[in-house]
């Protein structure tokens, strides 16, 4: 399609900033309602046990306390939170989380009771007076399948393996004579997204009309509404999910958590608005974890370095329940472990293992960060063994442009295929090498004059995005000359208002100043699918172009009537409609009768942005500290809508990836206690840690899968991070013979690799 690029492609400053910079954003804790009560959740401090009793009688007597809810108040059948992607209900239902613990507790942090009080402080004061009796059971904290396991979490199924997915490509060949085979065990560690705004909700119940309003929706408000409707027993139309400003999501916030049922339930019971906000310690145990995998992966290639096969088995540490997106990361790690490389034979299983830890879900680049780590490590190990240059090894195995659409593995059950859509992977690799100055930097290897060990690495990645099935957009002309655009996308801080305004403006051929974007809340559109999997620009952006076409048709029709001419004679110039006879009318004048366009973009084909990253590190043998000397990303995103926000996403993702590789770790004790309760323990990057990052973006190979040609690009910055940093550390420490196969590469662990190799 040819659209005039007035706004698309320009580094437009964000409209959101005008309020956010003044402290005039509205985040959920900023919202108040008259008569508002406060909810605080009592959470289990036992990882696994039979729940005998939750005695709330003392708590209920405390000042300001209005009620204390337990499983008994929720009743039977106890609602459970459904797996929302690719579900097989008969298989997964036993593992779904009840909205409050009833008979068993399965993780530290599981909700046991909800205290409702006049003030937040009084609710917290009451927490300490609830008596809980739990018969403890052994805790399962490893996702490796041991026979017998220390305990079974779900007696009904008798196994801790909820489901296994199979990713396959090729003929099923298992014998590869005269070939090189390298098998390794890799483990990736447990992370959490840790957005700066913690979760909160404010639920309101209109008893007269039987309507529920839930303020504080994010990410996938329409989906959350559907789920809530079913669990709470209200028709969808009786529920509004309202989105305000959202302080980051990264895939974790916005999914359905127990609180998303408990707080609306409490509001309906009390017949008063109920507000709930979590604190950071609670957030660490109650919000979705992610990224913990244990895999045995085998790479097969010819002696000349031609990749032939990638095989293996991965255990995914799911946590205590299969929450709404628990299977996304595991499916991705298996299906996309091959990344941008041509590997004919792929056979990777992933087993979802239940453990007594906080439940998991999606977190930026889910399964991709982890799978790329395993694959790229194997590539460097193979290259080293075979004596082939690491760059050359990658070059000869990258999928080429004329092989596209290139089918990667299919995964089942259910069966889903995927095709790499467009691009020239070799070009971005070459670009990366040049910008990084690989030639010079790769010579600085091993012990240097500063007493540290230096090394480099390069990696290639794809970033799947733009997932379907559909998205809606509605455009309405106002009598004040503005054009309101309603999209089903959610704002999580990524600049959706600005990007959608750019696309709207260019699609209509009008000035961006006239566009008002409304997003997220279910009151704007009949249905939507939110912001996940880097889909907003692709899906909502494309829906906007379709809505714009419809709106322009409607404008022509209305103008033709008003100006008494044929529709084909109407010419649109900005927000006026003109005829060849010198007459014209402003759209705003036509808007006295509804003037609108609606568009739905549907597709089943994801987009694949792609690129390469390179890093140079220096490792201090005295402390184990890894300094990132230079780290660059080159990416082609199909078509750049806003280079300013795009680069911002990539830098932010790179730093998050570095945090995950070097600093962040959710540590559990043998008894299932989460040992991390504050920012002193969960170490997210600060401004001093990673100042040396560079980003290069291009939009030269549009995706054929949507009218804009854009590709989702919010996650790519970190997909290759663990891979590249680990390979750089391995390269730096090669004379010690250390081979990192686990994350994080924290200073203590790197030190131990050097000084206490096992």
């Amino acid at each position, binding site marked *: 399609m040819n659209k005039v690029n007035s706004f698309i492609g320009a580094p437009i400053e964000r409209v959101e900033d005008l309020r956010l910079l003044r402290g005039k954003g509205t985040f959920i804790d900023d919202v108040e309602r008259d008569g508002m009560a406060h909810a*605080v*959740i*009592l*959470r*289990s*401090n*036992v990882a696994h*046990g039979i729940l005998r009793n939750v005695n709330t009688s003392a708590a209920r007597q405390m000042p300001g306390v209005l009620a204390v809810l337990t499983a008994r108040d929720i009743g039977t059948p106890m609602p459970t939170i459904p797996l929302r992607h690719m579900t097989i209900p008969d298989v997964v239902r036993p593992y779904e989380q009840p909205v409050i613990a009833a008979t068993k507790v399965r993780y*530290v*942090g599981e909700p*046991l009771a909800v205290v409702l009080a006049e003030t*937040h*402080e009084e609710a*917290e*004061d009451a*927490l*300490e007076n*609830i*008596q*809980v*009796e*739990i*018969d*403890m059971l052994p805790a399962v904290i490893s996702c490796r399948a041991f026979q017998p396991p220390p305990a079974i979490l779900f007696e009904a199924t008798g196994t801790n393996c909820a489901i296994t997915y199979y990713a396959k490509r090729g003929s099923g060949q298992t014998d590869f004579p005269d070939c090189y085979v390298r098998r390794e065990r890799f483990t990736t560690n447990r992370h959490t997204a840790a957005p700066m705004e913690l979760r909160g909700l404010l639920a309101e119940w209109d008893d007269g009309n039987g309507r529920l309003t839930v303020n504080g929706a994010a990410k996938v408000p329409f989906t959350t509404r559907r789920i809530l409707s079913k669990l709470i027993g209200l028709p969808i139309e009786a529920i509004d999910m309202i989105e305000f400003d959202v302080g980051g999501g990264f895939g974790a916030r916005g999914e359905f958590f127990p609180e998303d049922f408990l707080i609306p339930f409490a509001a309906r019971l009390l017949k008063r608005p109920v507000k709930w906000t979590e*604190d*950071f*310690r*609670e957030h660490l*145990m*109650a919000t979705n974890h992610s990224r913990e995998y244990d895999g045995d992966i085998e790479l097969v290639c010819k002696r000349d370095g031609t990749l032939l096969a990638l095989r293996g088995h991965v255990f995914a540490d799911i946590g205590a329940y299969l929450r709404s997106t628990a299977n996304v990361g595991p499916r991705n790690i298996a299906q996309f472990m091959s990344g941008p490389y041509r590997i004919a034979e792929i056979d990777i299983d992933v087993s979802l293992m239940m453990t007594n830890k906080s439940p998991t879900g999606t977190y930026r680049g889910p399964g991709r960060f982890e799978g790329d780590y395993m694959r790229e490590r194997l590539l460097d190990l193979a290259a080293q063994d075979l004596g082939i240059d690491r760059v050359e090894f990658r070059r000869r195995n990258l999928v080429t442009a004329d092989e596209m659409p290139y089918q990667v593995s299919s995964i089942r059950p259910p069966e889903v295929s995927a095709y790499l859509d467009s691009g020239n992977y070799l070009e971005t690799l070459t670009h990366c090498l040049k910008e990084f100055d690989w030639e010079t930097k790769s010579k600085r290897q091993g012990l240097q004059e500063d007493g540290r060990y230096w090394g480099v690495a390069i990696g290639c990645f794809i970033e799947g995005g733009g997932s379907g099935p559909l998205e809606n957009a509605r455009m309405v002309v106002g009598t004040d000359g503005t054009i309101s655009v309603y999209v089903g996308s959610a704002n999580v801080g990524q600049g959706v208002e600005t990007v959608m305004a750019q696309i709207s403006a260019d699609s209509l051929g009008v000035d961006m100043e006239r566009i008002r974007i409304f997003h997220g809340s279910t009151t704007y559109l009949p249905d939507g699918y939110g912001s996940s999997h880097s889909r907003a620009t692709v899906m909502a952006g494309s829906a906007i172009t379709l809505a714009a076409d419809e709106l322009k048709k409607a404008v022509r029709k209305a103008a033709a009537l008003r100006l008494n001419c044929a529709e084909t004679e109407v010419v649109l110039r900005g927000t006026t409609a003109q005829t060849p006879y010198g007459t014209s009318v402003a759209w705003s004048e036509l808007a006295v009768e509804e003037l609108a366009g609606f568009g739905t973009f549907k597709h089943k084909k994801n987009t694949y942005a792609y690129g390469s990253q390179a890093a140079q590190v220096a490792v*201090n043998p*005295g*402390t*184990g*500290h890894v*300094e990132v000397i230079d780290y660059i990303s080159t990416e082609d995103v199909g078509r750049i809508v806003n280079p300013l926000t795009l680069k911002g996403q990539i830098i932010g993702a790179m730093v998050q990836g570095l945090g995950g590789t070097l*600093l962040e770790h959710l*540590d559990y004790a043998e008894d299932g206690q989460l*040992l*991390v*309760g*504050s920012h*002193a*323990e969960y*170490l997210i*990057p*600060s401004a*001093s*840690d990673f100042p040396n990052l560079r980003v290069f973006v291009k939009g030269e190979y549009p995706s054929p899968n949507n009218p804009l040609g854009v590709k989702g690009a919010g996650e790519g910055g970190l997909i290759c991070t663990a891979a590249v940093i680990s390979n750089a550390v391995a390269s730096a420490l090669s004379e010690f013979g250390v081979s990192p196969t686990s994350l994080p590469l*924290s*200073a*203590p662990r790197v*030190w*131990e690799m050097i*000084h*206490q190799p096992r």
Partner: protein
Amino acid sequence: MAGQSEGAKPMKLPKFDYACPATIEQAVALLAGADGTARPISGGQSLMPMLAFRLLQPSLLVDLRHVPGLATITINNDGVHLGAKVRWCDIETSAALKVAHPILTAAVRYIAHHQIRTRGTIGGSIAHADPAAEMPCVAVLCDAEIEIVGSAGKRKIPATSFFKGPLMTALQPDELITGIRFLAWPAGRRWAFEEFARRRGDFALAGIGVFFDVRDDKATNVHIAAFGVGDTPLRLANAEAALNNRPLTDAVIKGCCQAAREAVDPRDNTHGSSAYRRGLVDYLLGESLRRLTVNSSKACANAH
């Protein structure tokens, strides 16, 4: 079987009363009258997180903000005196202090962040006694004297006897720190203060302070202390002995570091193993001593 749940602890502060006395005598009386359940508060940078996590539930907070005479930095021939309410930012911005007692200023640069240093006080840090905190180590390293007042009157305790365990000191419940006195710091003294933390401003995984004077090309009056590797900051007597009255040769430095490594016995924990922390002490001390042979008395920058 698990009883009363301590699940996710609340984050709003517990209830307490608050008093803001105008004199030190009134402050002491308030502490004495609360039978051990009151706490003094000044900058609050150590106390407030404890309250937020409900690790402390005092009946009364006694705010020292209006108590006069506790916020002065005094430098004279006898040394340096810091009132208990002297803030980190006051130390950082004192050009005179940087000359009179350079290791103090150097250590403060490692403490937390700029926005903490605008309120955190030396008295608060000493009273809090976190084993990984910088100032208790500096006090122990320099044989500082802690000045205290309580209902029984005034007293002084050497820093080396003041710290009893993690977050435990010799202070009685009705006592307040009023100041800390450091001996005069001679020009020409060699010193270093080094720590390693995961991120800038974090609590140290391990840290060391060292100083010595030079006579006849030998190190004398050697003082070495480590923090973050025990329940309190530790003077490393064997490491001091390994260096005292000796020249700073590679062999002597190695022996000193080995003695330091053996003198500490940190626990394994989620932040690092015992072997790692001992390795850090060895490395930080070694790097510091090696730099001191090359340069004069400059403090080392952070290890990485």
